Protein backbone atom coordinates (compact mmCIF):
# COMPACT_ATOMS: atom_id res chain seq x y z
CA UNK A 1 0.00 0.00 0.00
CA UNK A 2 1.45 3.32 -0.99
CA UNK A 3 1.65 6.09 1.62
CA UNK A 4 -1.44 8.30 1.12
CA UNK A 5 0.53 11.53 1.59
CA UNK A 6 2.74 10.44 -1.28
CA UNK A 7 -0.37 9.78 -3.36
CA UNK A 8 -1.74 13.26 -2.61
CA UNK A 9 1.57 14.94 -3.39
CA UNK A 10 2.07 13.03 -6.63
CA UNK A 11 -1.46 13.75 -7.74
CA UNK A 12 -1.08 17.47 -7.07
CA UNK A 13 2.13 17.42 -9.09
CA UNK A 14 0.46 15.91 -12.11
CA UNK A 15 -2.39 18.38 -11.91
CA UNK A 16 -0.03 21.34 -11.55
CA UNK A 17 2.21 20.37 -14.43
CA UNK A 18 -0.37 19.38 -17.01
CA UNK A 19 1.44 17.15 -19.45
CA UNK A 20 4.83 15.70 -18.54
CA UNK A 21 7.41 13.74 -20.47
CA UNK A 22 8.19 10.42 -18.79
CA UNK A 23 11.62 11.48 -17.61
CA UNK A 24 10.27 14.73 -16.11
CA UNK A 25 7.41 12.85 -14.48
CA UNK A 26 9.83 10.41 -12.89
CA UNK A 27 12.12 13.21 -11.69
CA UNK A 28 9.18 14.99 -10.11
CA UNK A 29 7.83 11.86 -8.45
CA UNK A 30 11.32 11.09 -7.20
CA UNK A 31 11.27 14.45 -5.37
CA UNK A 32 7.87 13.56 -3.95
CA UNK A 33 9.17 10.19 -2.74
CA UNK A 34 12.17 11.84 -1.16
CA UNK A 35 9.92 14.31 0.62
CA UNK A 36 7.86 11.44 2.03
CA UNK A 37 10.92 9.43 3.05
CA UNK A 38 10.39 6.76 0.43
CA UNK A 39 12.96 5.39 -1.96
CA UNK A 40 12.17 5.99 -5.60
CA UNK A 41 12.09 3.13 -8.05
CA UNK A 42 10.42 2.54 -11.39
CA UNK A 43 8.21 0.03 -9.67
CA UNK A 44 7.11 2.56 -7.05
CA UNK A 45 6.43 5.05 -9.84
CA UNK A 46 4.12 2.58 -11.59
CA UNK A 47 2.50 1.67 -8.30
CA UNK A 48 1.79 5.33 -7.48
CA UNK A 49 0.16 5.91 -10.85
CA UNK A 50 -1.91 2.78 -10.48
CA UNK A 51 -3.07 3.71 -6.97
CA UNK A 52 -3.86 7.30 -7.97
CA UNK A 53 -5.88 6.12 -10.94
CA UNK A 54 -7.82 3.66 -8.80
CA UNK A 55 -8.74 6.49 -6.42
CA UNK A 56 -9.66 9.13 -8.98
CA UNK A 57 -11.53 6.89 -11.38
CA UNK A 58 -14.86 7.56 -9.69
CA UNK A 59 -14.43 11.31 -10.29
CA UNK A 60 -13.92 10.62 -14.01
CA UNK A 61 -10.24 11.48 -13.94
CA UNK A 62 -7.21 9.52 -14.98
CA UNK A 63 -3.47 9.92 -15.35
CA UNK A 64 -3.23 8.73 -18.87
CA UNK A 65 -0.02 7.93 -20.70
CA UNK A 66 0.78 7.55 -24.35
CA UNK A 67 3.36 8.19 -27.04
CA UNK A 68 3.79 11.50 -28.79
CA UNK A 69 3.83 11.53 -32.56
CA UNK A 70 7.27 13.05 -32.95
CA UNK A 71 10.04 10.94 -34.45
CA UNK A 72 11.14 9.52 -31.10
CA UNK A 73 7.71 8.55 -29.82
CA UNK A 74 8.44 9.65 -26.26
CA UNK A 75 5.96 8.67 -23.58
CA UNK A 76 3.99 11.43 -21.85
CA UNK A 77 1.79 11.49 -18.75
CA UNK A 78 -1.25 13.71 -18.47
CA UNK A 79 -4.01 14.26 -15.88
CA UNK A 80 -7.18 14.05 -17.97
CA UNK A 81 -10.91 14.23 -17.53
CA UNK A 82 -12.35 11.07 -18.97
CA UNK A 83 -15.82 12.45 -19.40
CA UNK A 84 -16.02 16.12 -20.20
CA UNK A 85 -16.75 17.80 -23.50
CA UNK A 86 -13.53 18.06 -25.42
CA UNK A 87 -13.13 21.72 -26.17
CA UNK A 88 -14.09 22.91 -22.75
CA UNK A 89 -10.91 21.30 -21.50
CA UNK A 90 -8.88 24.23 -22.71
CA UNK A 91 -11.50 26.75 -21.68
CA UNK A 92 -9.93 27.63 -18.36
CA UNK A 93 -6.62 28.58 -19.90
CA UNK A 94 -7.41 30.45 -23.09
CA UNK A 95 -9.84 33.05 -24.41
CA UNK A 96 -12.83 32.27 -26.59
CA UNK A 97 -11.16 33.59 -29.74
CA UNK A 98 -8.07 31.53 -29.04
CA UNK A 99 -10.18 28.42 -28.61
CA UNK A 100 -11.94 28.99 -31.94
CA UNK A 101 -8.52 29.28 -33.55
CA UNK A 102 -7.28 26.10 -31.89
CA UNK A 103 -10.35 24.18 -32.92
CA UNK A 104 -9.81 25.27 -36.54
CA UNK A 105 -6.25 23.95 -36.44
CA UNK A 106 -7.32 20.63 -34.94
CA UNK A 107 -9.95 20.18 -37.62
CA UNK A 108 -7.37 20.85 -40.34
CA UNK A 109 -4.98 18.36 -38.76
CA UNK A 110 -7.61 15.66 -38.51
CA UNK A 111 -8.58 16.23 -42.12
CA UNK A 112 -5.04 16.19 -43.49
CA UNK A 113 -3.54 12.94 -44.77
CA UNK A 114 -0.19 13.45 -43.07
CA UNK A 115 -1.45 14.97 -39.85
CA UNK A 116 0.55 18.14 -40.57
CA UNK A 117 -0.33 21.74 -41.39
CA UNK A 118 2.06 24.46 -42.42
CA UNK A 119 2.23 27.60 -40.31
CA UNK A 120 0.65 29.65 -43.09
CA UNK A 121 -2.36 27.37 -43.35
CA UNK A 122 -2.66 27.16 -39.58
CA UNK A 123 -2.68 30.94 -39.25
CA UNK A 124 -5.49 31.23 -41.79
CA UNK A 125 -7.90 30.20 -39.07
CA UNK A 126 -6.97 33.00 -36.72
CA UNK A 127 -10.16 35.01 -37.36
CA UNK A 128 -10.51 37.52 -34.57
CA UNK A 129 -6.95 37.40 -33.36
CA UNK A 130 -4.26 39.76 -34.57
CA UNK A 131 -1.33 38.15 -36.37
CA UNK A 132 0.88 38.78 -33.38
CA UNK A 133 -1.62 37.39 -30.86
CA UNK A 134 -2.07 34.32 -33.04
CA UNK A 135 1.67 33.66 -33.17
CA UNK A 136 2.04 34.11 -29.42
CA UNK A 137 -0.87 31.77 -28.87
CA UNK A 138 0.73 29.15 -31.12
CA UNK A 139 3.89 29.37 -29.05
CA UNK A 140 1.91 28.91 -25.86
CA UNK A 141 0.15 25.90 -27.33
CA UNK A 142 3.52 24.37 -28.11
CA UNK A 143 4.80 25.16 -24.63
CA UNK A 144 1.75 23.53 -23.07
CA UNK A 145 2.13 20.60 -25.44
CA UNK A 146 -1.22 20.84 -27.20
CA UNK A 147 0.68 21.22 -30.47
CA UNK A 148 4.15 20.30 -31.69
CA UNK A 149 6.15 21.90 -34.46
CA UNK A 150 8.75 20.53 -36.86
CA UNK A 151 11.93 22.42 -37.71
CA UNK A 152 10.45 23.59 -40.98
CA UNK A 153 7.43 25.01 -39.15
CA UNK A 154 4.81 22.38 -39.75
CA UNK A 155 2.37 21.82 -36.90
CA UNK A 156 0.99 18.53 -35.65
CA UNK A 157 -0.92 17.37 -32.60
CA UNK A 158 1.12 17.50 -29.41
CA UNK A 159 1.07 14.82 -26.70
CA UNK A 160 -1.44 16.69 -24.57
CA UNK A 161 -3.98 16.78 -27.39
CA UNK A 162 -3.41 13.10 -28.13
CA UNK A 163 -4.03 12.18 -24.50
CA UNK A 164 -6.59 14.71 -23.33
CA UNK A 165 -8.70 14.84 -26.50
CA UNK A 166 -8.55 11.09 -27.11
CA UNK A 167 -12.31 10.45 -27.16
CA UNK A 168 -12.81 13.31 -29.61
CA UNK A 169 -10.02 12.03 -31.86
CA UNK A 170 -11.34 8.48 -31.76
CA UNK A 171 -14.74 9.59 -32.95
CA UNK A 172 -13.27 11.62 -35.81
CA UNK A 173 -10.36 9.55 -37.04
CA UNK A 174 -10.31 6.08 -38.50
CA UNK A 175 -6.63 5.51 -39.10
CA UNK A 176 -4.95 2.99 -36.86
CA UNK A 177 -1.20 2.42 -36.84
CA UNK A 178 -0.37 -0.87 -38.53
CA UNK A 179 2.32 -1.63 -35.98
CA UNK A 180 0.94 -0.63 -32.56
CA UNK A 181 -2.78 -0.60 -33.42
CA UNK A 182 -3.52 2.67 -31.68
CA UNK A 183 -4.77 5.88 -33.20
CA UNK A 184 -2.43 7.63 -35.62
CA UNK A 185 -2.68 11.19 -36.91
CA UNK A 186 0.86 11.96 -37.99
CA UNK A 187 2.78 9.12 -39.55
CA UNK A 188 4.31 7.51 -42.61
CA UNK A 189 1.89 6.65 -45.38
CA UNK A 190 2.33 3.46 -47.31
CA UNK A 191 2.70 4.33 -51.00
CA UNK A 192 0.74 1.26 -52.04
CA UNK A 193 -2.07 0.73 -49.58
CA UNK A 194 -3.85 3.23 -47.36
CA UNK A 195 -2.23 2.34 -44.09
CA UNK A 196 -0.38 4.77 -41.86
CA UNK A 197 2.35 3.99 -39.36
CA UNK A 198 3.78 6.12 -36.52
CA UNK A 199 7.30 7.20 -37.34
CA UNK A 200 8.62 5.73 -34.11
CA UNK A 201 6.75 2.48 -34.72
CA UNK A 202 8.22 2.31 -38.21
CA UNK A 203 11.81 2.76 -37.04
CA UNK A 204 11.37 0.19 -34.29
CA UNK A 205 9.92 -2.25 -36.80
CA UNK A 206 12.69 -1.58 -39.31
CA UNK A 207 15.36 -2.03 -36.62
CA UNK A 208 13.95 -5.32 -35.44
CA UNK A 209 13.95 -6.65 -38.97
CA UNK A 210 17.57 -5.56 -39.34
CA UNK A 211 18.50 -7.53 -36.25
CA UNK A 212 16.83 -10.63 -37.52
CA UNK A 213 18.75 -10.47 -40.77
Amino acid at each position, binding site marked *: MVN*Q*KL*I*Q*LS*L*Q*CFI*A*HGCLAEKDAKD*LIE*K*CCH*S*CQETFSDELFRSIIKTVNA*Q*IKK*FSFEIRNGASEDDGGQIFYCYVNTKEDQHSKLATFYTVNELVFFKAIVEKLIGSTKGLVSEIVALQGKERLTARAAEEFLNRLINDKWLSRTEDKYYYLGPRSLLDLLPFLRSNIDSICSVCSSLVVRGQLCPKCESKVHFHCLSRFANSRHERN
Partner: protein
Amino acid sequence: MQKAQGELRKVYGIEVVTIPRDRITNDSTNESSKGSADKRYVLLNALELEKQNIISNPHQIEEYGLLTIILAIIFMTGGIIKEIELLEKLQTIVGRDRRKPHYLFGDVSKRLDQFVKEMYLNRNREVINTEAIREYSWGERSEVEVNKLELLQFVSELMDVPIDSWTSQYQQATEQ
Protein backbone atom coordinates in the same frame (compact mmCIF):
# COMPACT_ATOMS: atom_id res chain seq x y z
CA MET B 1 -20.87 18.54 -0.01
CA GLN B 2 -19.43 16.87 3.06
CA LYS B 3 -18.67 13.76 1.07
CA ALA B 4 -16.94 15.85 -1.59
CA GLN B 5 -14.87 17.57 1.08
CA GLY B 6 -13.88 14.21 2.50
CA GLU B 7 -12.80 12.89 -0.88
CA LEU B 8 -10.85 16.03 -1.71
CA ARG B 9 -9.08 15.80 1.61
CA LYS B 10 -8.30 12.09 1.39
CA VAL B 11 -7.40 11.69 -2.27
CA TYR B 12 -6.09 15.11 -3.27
CA GLY B 13 -4.87 16.52 0.03
CA ILE B 14 -7.02 19.61 -0.51
CA GLU B 15 -9.16 21.28 2.16
CA VAL B 16 -12.34 23.12 1.26
CA VAL B 17 -12.78 26.12 3.54
CA THR B 18 -15.86 28.31 3.81
CA ILE B 19 -15.39 32.04 3.86
CA PRO B 20 -17.63 33.52 6.56
CA ARG B 21 -20.44 35.67 5.21
CA ASP B 22 -19.68 38.72 7.35
CA ARG B 23 -16.24 39.07 5.85
CA ILE B 24 -17.54 39.66 2.36
CA THR B 25 -17.10 43.36 1.55
CA ASN B 26 -19.43 45.59 -0.38
CA ASP B 27 -16.76 46.74 -2.76
CA SER B 28 -18.56 47.00 -6.07
CA THR B 29 -15.36 46.52 -8.04
CA ASN B 30 -15.20 42.96 -6.75
CA GLU B 31 -17.45 41.22 -9.25
CA SER B 32 -17.80 38.05 -7.30
CA SER B 33 -19.59 39.77 -4.43
CA LYS B 34 -22.48 40.68 -6.71
CA GLY B 35 -25.32 38.23 -6.55
CA SER B 36 -26.55 36.46 -3.49
CA ALA B 37 -24.09 33.67 -2.76
CA ASP B 38 -24.55 32.59 0.82
CA LYS B 39 -21.33 30.76 1.08
CA ARG B 40 -18.08 31.01 -0.68
CA TYR B 41 -15.43 28.34 -0.77
CA VAL B 42 -11.70 28.39 -1.06
CA LEU B 43 -9.43 25.44 -1.74
CA LEU B 44 -6.45 25.12 0.56
CA ASN B 45 -3.52 22.81 0.20
CA ALA B 46 -3.37 20.50 3.20
CA LEU B 47 0.17 19.38 2.47
CA GLU B 48 3.10 20.88 4.33
CA LEU B 49 4.82 23.88 2.77
CA GLU B 50 8.01 22.05 1.86
CA LYS B 51 5.99 19.55 -0.11
CA GLN B 52 4.08 22.33 -1.83
CA ASN B 53 7.35 23.69 -3.17
CA ILE B 54 7.79 20.57 -5.26
CA ILE B 55 4.45 21.09 -6.91
CA SER B 56 4.85 24.73 -7.86
CA ASN B 57 5.00 25.60 -11.50
CA PRO B 58 7.76 28.13 -12.24
CA HIS B 59 5.22 30.61 -13.69
CA GLN B 60 3.16 30.65 -10.54
CA ILE B 61 6.10 31.33 -8.27
CA GLU B 62 6.68 34.78 -9.83
CA GLU B 63 3.08 35.88 -9.48
CA TYR B 64 2.62 34.68 -5.95
CA GLY B 65 6.04 35.92 -4.94
CA LEU B 66 4.78 39.40 -5.75
CA LEU B 67 1.60 38.74 -3.81
CA THR B 68 3.58 37.65 -0.76
CA ILE B 69 5.57 40.88 -0.86
CA ILE B 70 2.40 42.96 -1.20
CA LEU B 71 0.72 41.13 1.68
CA ALA B 72 3.83 41.58 3.81
CA ILE B 73 3.91 45.31 3.07
CA ILE B 74 0.24 45.68 3.97
CA PHE B 75 0.64 43.61 7.12
CA MET B 76 3.63 45.56 8.33
CA THR B 77 2.02 48.95 7.69
CA GLY B 78 -0.99 48.20 9.84
CA GLY B 79 -3.34 46.28 7.60
CA ILE B 80 -4.30 48.94 5.08
CA ILE B 81 -2.28 51.06 2.67
CA LYS B 82 -2.88 53.71 0.00
CA GLU B 83 -2.18 52.61 -3.55
CA ILE B 84 0.50 55.26 -4.11
CA GLU B 85 2.42 54.22 -1.00
CA LEU B 86 2.15 50.58 -1.97
CA LEU B 87 3.51 51.21 -5.43
CA GLU B 88 6.37 53.32 -4.06
CA LYS B 89 7.33 50.65 -1.57
CA LEU B 90 7.17 47.99 -4.25
CA GLN B 91 9.44 49.95 -6.50
CA THR B 92 12.05 50.24 -3.74
CA ILE B 93 11.82 46.61 -2.70
CA VAL B 94 11.49 44.98 -6.06
CA GLY B 95 13.97 47.45 -7.50
CA ARG B 96 12.91 47.22 -11.09
CA ASP B 97 14.30 49.31 -13.89
CA ARG B 98 13.84 52.94 -12.86
CA ARG B 99 14.20 54.15 -16.38
CA LYS B 100 10.82 52.66 -17.11
CA PRO B 101 8.51 53.50 -14.21
CA HIS B 102 5.38 53.12 -16.25
CA TYR B 103 6.32 49.63 -17.26
CA LEU B 104 6.42 48.80 -13.56
CA PHE B 105 3.09 50.48 -12.83
CA GLY B 106 1.47 48.96 -15.86
CA ASP B 107 2.56 45.47 -15.01
CA VAL B 108 1.79 45.74 -11.30
CA SER B 109 -1.63 47.28 -11.90
CA LYS B 110 -2.59 44.22 -13.89
CA ARG B 111 -1.42 41.96 -11.07
CA LEU B 112 -3.28 44.04 -8.48
CA ASP B 113 -6.47 43.69 -10.52
CA GLN B 114 -5.88 39.98 -10.72
CA PHE B 115 -5.30 39.65 -6.98
CA VAL B 116 -8.41 41.66 -6.17
CA LYS B 117 -10.44 39.48 -8.51
CA GLU B 118 -9.04 36.34 -6.91
CA MET B 119 -9.95 37.72 -3.47
CA TYR B 120 -6.38 37.87 -2.25
CA LEU B 121 -6.62 41.65 -1.90
CA ASN B 122 -9.41 44.06 -1.02
CA ARG B 123 -9.60 47.38 -2.73
CA ASN B 124 -11.46 50.38 -1.26
CA ARG B 125 -12.18 53.71 -2.83
CA GLU B 126 -12.08 56.64 -0.47
CA VAL B 127 -12.79 60.23 -1.36
CA ILE B 128 -10.61 62.62 0.61
CA ASN B 129 -10.74 66.33 -0.22
CA THR B 130 -12.52 65.62 -3.51
CA GLU B 131 -9.71 63.30 -4.49
CA ALA B 132 -10.48 59.63 -5.03
CA ILE B 133 -7.77 57.39 -3.68
CA ARG B 134 -7.57 53.63 -3.61
CA GLU B 135 -6.57 51.59 -0.61
CA TYR B 136 -5.60 47.96 -0.29
CA SER B 137 -6.01 45.48 2.53
CA TRP B 138 -5.88 41.71 2.84
CA GLY B 139 -8.64 39.91 1.00
CA GLU B 140 -10.74 37.16 2.55
CA ARG B 141 -8.81 34.51 0.71
CA SER B 142 -5.47 35.70 2.07
CA GLU B 143 -6.89 35.68 5.60
CA VAL B 144 -7.70 32.03 5.14
CA GLU B 145 -4.75 30.86 3.07
CA VAL B 146 -1.78 32.80 4.37
CA ASN B 147 -0.14 32.01 7.66
CA LYS B 148 0.67 35.35 9.33
CA LEU B 149 3.29 33.82 11.57
CA GLU B 150 5.21 32.38 8.63
CA LEU B 151 4.97 35.71 6.84
CA LEU B 152 6.26 37.57 9.89
CA GLN B 153 9.08 35.06 10.19
CA PHE B 154 9.99 35.74 6.58
CA VAL B 155 10.06 39.50 7.18
CA SER B 156 12.09 39.11 10.40
CA GLU B 157 14.70 37.03 8.63
CA LEU B 158 14.85 39.54 5.81
CA MET B 159 15.35 42.48 8.18
CA ASP B 160 17.50 40.39 10.51
CA VAL B 161 15.61 41.30 13.68
CA PRO B 162 13.83 39.10 16.20
CA ILE B 163 10.27 38.22 15.34
CA ASP B 164 8.69 39.80 18.41
CA SER B 165 10.16 43.26 17.78
CA TRP B 166 6.94 44.04 15.96
CA THR B 167 4.63 43.65 18.92
CA SER B 168 1.37 44.46 17.18
CA GLN B 169 1.98 42.19 14.21
CA TYR B 170 3.36 39.44 16.41
CA GLN B 171 0.22 39.55 18.51
CA GLN B 172 -1.99 39.31 15.44
CA ALA B 173 0.07 36.48 14.04
CA THR B 174 -0.03 34.39 17.18
CA GLU B 175 -3.73 34.94 17.70
CA GLN B 176 -4.46 33.20 14.40
